[in-house]
């Protein structure tokens, strides 16, 4: 099978910013390829390079065996058509006028369009189901109708390849499916190569047999949807936790952001004591409260950001005077409070001589056999002169304290109602 | 009694201030006070025609300032400093020559007069834009400068000359028709409210622009063709531009009567022709000559002062 596109070592970008960096890709003719990636990954730049809008600084771009740079615009228009995300048309052309513009390269200058042009336009309009609105001004159409008209415009060019740049983002579900099915038919029946940029990962995985995942101008993964859309890849590229689920029946993939909230309020009033300060515990305090845990906190200085959050959430907190080191009475109060909890969580609060005493609480909990969860990275948060915090936390870990990375991780490690059947009402 | 707050006073204070400013600007213009016969008034003239009138009534030595357009008589011009351009006098330079009286021509608005008032300069407007205003202007200047006798004599002379010429004038039907042009691009003709129209009529011609109730107006080639005048008189102050050639080369003009008979005249001394003043009789004579078929001789170039 001949190649539709070959990009070899292409570097392209704007002014001083290289968006695509030493990029290579080969797409055989007849492929339906989905191009995915976060904003700024270079997807639109790739399309610009393919359609000749942007000239790469280095590397070669070949379309159907011919270098893009050497293609005459008219020839190129007969090879590649682009369907943009949206087209702002200030002039009240009718749908037919717009679709007829797809024939620009072959229209006669003076007279009326030829019979062949008219036939091609007619067919394109029928294919995209805009034939019955052909005389309506495009400015009066709905989003879906307008996009179908633009697809018709692209079809009227009779291209061998179509580039769709998030062309269905604005459409509602049935129109989106409609356009995708239309494009799929084009691909399967007429052998038109289709490249599709979409943020709808599921849609892309369903219609495209091959996906390319881009990040920062480079190809991260290239292959079948199941191979490209892994949790690892997606987490790395989109920088958020996701969950990928493959439907056993259809083989379709469903991609969801990883649960931010546990499905059930698993806390059930289980007591968790949180050691925080300076705003580091805000997320933890909030999330644990939402999950239904009975959260306690201390020792915090009065006026501390976490103290205010705790107060707002109704969390029982042991407070010390502002800017004072943790004193004996505060320490005792905290010890009593912590004793009532089932587990203790250490957040990313930095340690200095003033709040080092809070580590006592953790040590006591561990001695009592209750779970201790410390956040990773204590090395960078120890401001005590003798690295006492690092030492003590390492001790805790050695004796069985769990280390948690992020909130999602933490939630999985906390004791839940399921692990305490005796506490259920 | 409670102290009045300044805030409450301010509207009242503002009103007082405002009224004060308004009333202070409303000083009435004082008429020029009569000066004893032995005293000589220092006079500034801001228009060429006024300068000529001042000299004609014998008060030339009293001139201490003139406009840059004033160019006659030459000896006055040599001696008297310029205090501004015609229509744009410089108040500073005016004050510098310490005039007792400032004479200026009619202007579109009276802002200039008010400026002179504010600078406390005695001033008088001398209207001299039409033929019949010349004798009146001469009389006025004579009164203002205490040369009534000479002024009156001159005015009477002019009036008599005008009356005689009018008495001997041909009826309108027998007069040669004239197109009087003061600018070539676009062609601007003199209407019946202009000095040139007065002059041409007095000289025995019939100005085809008289049908228009304006001083000067733009005309199209077609308008000229429809009236086909006997004479085309060009009073264009355009320096070295060959106005006659430009005009006669316009499309269709070669078929005009005046062009075919060679009666297109452009070599007038516009300093005489366009200036309503004491030399009006000279202008009249030149025009009569032209209308008799004798083109004027080009004026000798005058050395610029």
């Amino acid at each position, binding site marked *: 099978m001949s190649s539709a596109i070959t990009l070899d070592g292409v570097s392209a970008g704007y002014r001083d910013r290289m968006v695509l960096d030493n990029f290579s890709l080969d797409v055989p003719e007849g492929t339906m390829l989905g191009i995915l990636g976060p904003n700024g990954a270079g997807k639109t730049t790739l399309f610009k390079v393919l359609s*000749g809008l942007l000239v790469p600084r280095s590397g070669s771009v070949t379309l159907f065996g011919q270098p893009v740079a050497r293609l005459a615009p008219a020839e190129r228009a007969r090879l590649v058509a682009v369907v943009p995300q949206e087209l702002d048309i200030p002039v009240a052309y009718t749908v037919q006028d717009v679709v007829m*513009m797809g024939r620009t390269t072959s229209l006669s200058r003076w007279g009326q369009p030829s019979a062949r042009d008219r036939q091609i336009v007619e067919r394109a309009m029928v294919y995209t189901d805009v034939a019955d609105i052909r005389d309506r001004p495009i400015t009066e159409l709905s989003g879906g109708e307008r996009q179908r008209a633009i697809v018709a415009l692209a079809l009227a060019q009779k291209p061998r390849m179509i580039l769709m740049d998030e062309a269905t983002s604005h459409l509602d579900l049935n129109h989106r499916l409609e356009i995708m099915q239309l494009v799929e038919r084009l691909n399967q029946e007429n052998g038109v190569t289709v490249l599709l940029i979409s943020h709808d990962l599921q849609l892309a995985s369903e219609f495209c047999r091959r996906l390319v995942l881009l990040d920062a101008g480079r190809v991260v993964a290239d292959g079948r949807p199941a191979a490209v859309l892994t949790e690892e890849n997606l987490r790395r590229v989109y920088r958020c936790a996701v969950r990928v689920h493959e439907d056993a029946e259809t083989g379709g993939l469903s991609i969801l952001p990883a649960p931010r909230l546990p499905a059930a309020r698993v806390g059930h009033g289980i007591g968790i004591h949180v050691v925080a300060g300076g705003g580091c515990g805000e997320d933890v305090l909030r999330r644990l409260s939402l999950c239904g845990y009975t959260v306690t906190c201390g020792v915090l200085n009065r006026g501390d950001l976490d103290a205010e959050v705790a107060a707002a959430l109704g969390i029982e907190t042991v407070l010390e005077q502002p800017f004072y080191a943790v004193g004996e009475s505060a320490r005792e109060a905290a010890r009593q409070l912590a004793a009532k909890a089932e587990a203790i969580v250490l957040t990313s609060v930095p340690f200095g001589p003033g709040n080092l005493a809070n580590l006592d609480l953790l040590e006591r909990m561990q001695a009592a056999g209750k779970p201790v969860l410390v956040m990773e990275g204590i090395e960078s948060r120890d401001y005590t002169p003798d690295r006492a915090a690092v030492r003590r936390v390492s001790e805790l870990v050695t004796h069985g304290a769990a280390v948690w990375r992020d909130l999602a991780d933490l939630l999985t490690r906390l004791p839940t109602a399921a692990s305490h059947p005796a506490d259920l009402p | 009694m409670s102290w009045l707050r300044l805030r409450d006073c301010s509207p009242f204070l503002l009103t007082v201030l405002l009224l004060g400013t308004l009333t202070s600007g409303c000083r009435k213009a004082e008429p020029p006070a009569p000066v004893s016969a032995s005293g000589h008034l220092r006079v500034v003239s801001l228009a060429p025609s006024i300068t000529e009138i001042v000299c004609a009534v014998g008060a030339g030595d009293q001139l201490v300032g003139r406009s840059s357009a004033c160019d006659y008589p030459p000896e006055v011009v040599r001696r008297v400093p310029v205090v501004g351009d015609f229509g744009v006098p410089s108040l500073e330079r005016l004050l510098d020559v310490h005039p007792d009286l400032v004479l200026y021509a009619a202007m579109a608005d009276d802002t200039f007069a008010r400026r002179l008032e504010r600078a406390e300069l005695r001033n008088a407007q001398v209207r001299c834009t039409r033929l019949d205003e010349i004798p009146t202007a001469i009389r006025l200047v004579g009164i203002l400068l205490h040369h009534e006798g000479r002024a009156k004599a001159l005015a009477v002379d002019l009036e008599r000359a005008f009356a005689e010429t009018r008495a001997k004038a041909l009826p309108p039907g027998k007069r040669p028709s004239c197109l009087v042009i003061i600018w070539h691009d676009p062609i601007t003709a003199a209407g019946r409210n202009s000095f040139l129209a007065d002059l041409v009529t007095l000289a025995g011609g019939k100005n085809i622009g008289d049908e228009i109730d304006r001083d000067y107006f733009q*005309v199209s080639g077609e308008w000229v063709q429809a009236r086909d005048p006997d004479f085309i008189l060009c009073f264009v102050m355009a320096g070295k531009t060959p106005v006659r050639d430009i005009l006669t080369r316009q499309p269709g003009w070669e078929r005009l009567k005046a062009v075919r008979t060679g009666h297109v005249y452009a070599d007038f001394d516009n300093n005489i022709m366009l200036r309503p003043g004491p030399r009006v009789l000279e202008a009249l004579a030149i025009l009569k000559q032209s209308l008799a078929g004798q083109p004027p001789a080009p004026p000798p170039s005058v050395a610029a002062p």
Partner: protein
Amino acid sequence: MKPAAPVPRQTHQTRMFWLVLGLTPVLLGLCVLMGAAGIGLPDWTTQPVILRLRLTRVLAGFLIGAALSCAGVVLQAILRNPLAEPYVLGVSSGAGLGAAVAILTGFSALGAFSVPLSSFVLAVLTLLTVYRLAGPGGSRPSVFGLILSGVMVSSVCSSLLMFLVSVAPIEGMHSVIWWTLGNLEVTSEALLAVGGGLSAAGCLAIWALSPELNAITLGHDMAHHLGVRVKVIVAVALGLATLITAASVAVAGLIGFVGLLVPHVMRTLVGPDHRRLVPAAALGGGAFLAVCDAVARTALNVEIPVGVVTALIGGPFFLFLLHRRRKAGGLE
């Protein structure tokens, strides 16, 4: 009983086009009947010169009106802005400045072509400056960039013009001011032949670009995808628009509103397809200016500058259009 089907848009627009085509000669003929020598056709045996002068004037009005309208169409297509007109890009101010320089330096005395040549050269220079300012470094200038730099350069030219006028001898000023108000009394038929010929050729060339102009109104990127050499077409189209505007200004001074108004009206009548819009605008604009000039020379018994009449007619009409557009929600 089925209700009568509404006439499809295409047919209605085609009918309008033929109407414009048919009405134009009628209007032009009416204009020949009006003039300073009186209403009515001058007898060509007894008054051949007057007839010839009138025909020349009507022809000048037609050619210049057509040119200004076509330039307006092109600029509105390229800049994708319905407020675009030949003067937005500062072409008129540059041309006016060139004329003033020629008149006030005495260059105009060298012959009838000197003023038009001078204004033409400066108009082209102005356009190049505007283009360069809008998109430095060879990049494609954006619509806003073009309009902004057009306004800036236009202001600079106007200021220079005002400066020249203020220091000029009074006599030269009169000519310049008359020039800036527009005047179809062409004193040199050779000039009209050259200027009019250039304008006509330019209009034809613009008509030939209709498919590309259509594509460009969809956006420069989209036009590129449709196979149009956008940079080349934009440069050529702008160049043509400048050429015919400068030729018009050189012949008849500054006449405004024609390039703004006529394309608008024609677009509502015959539709936005340039293959129909360009000739309709040319014919309509030509007829419009000829009629305005007929009014200008006969309404009062003195000559009024034709630019005044186009402004008096075009101005309120344009405000009305603007009002209607805003009511309709900003879309055409």
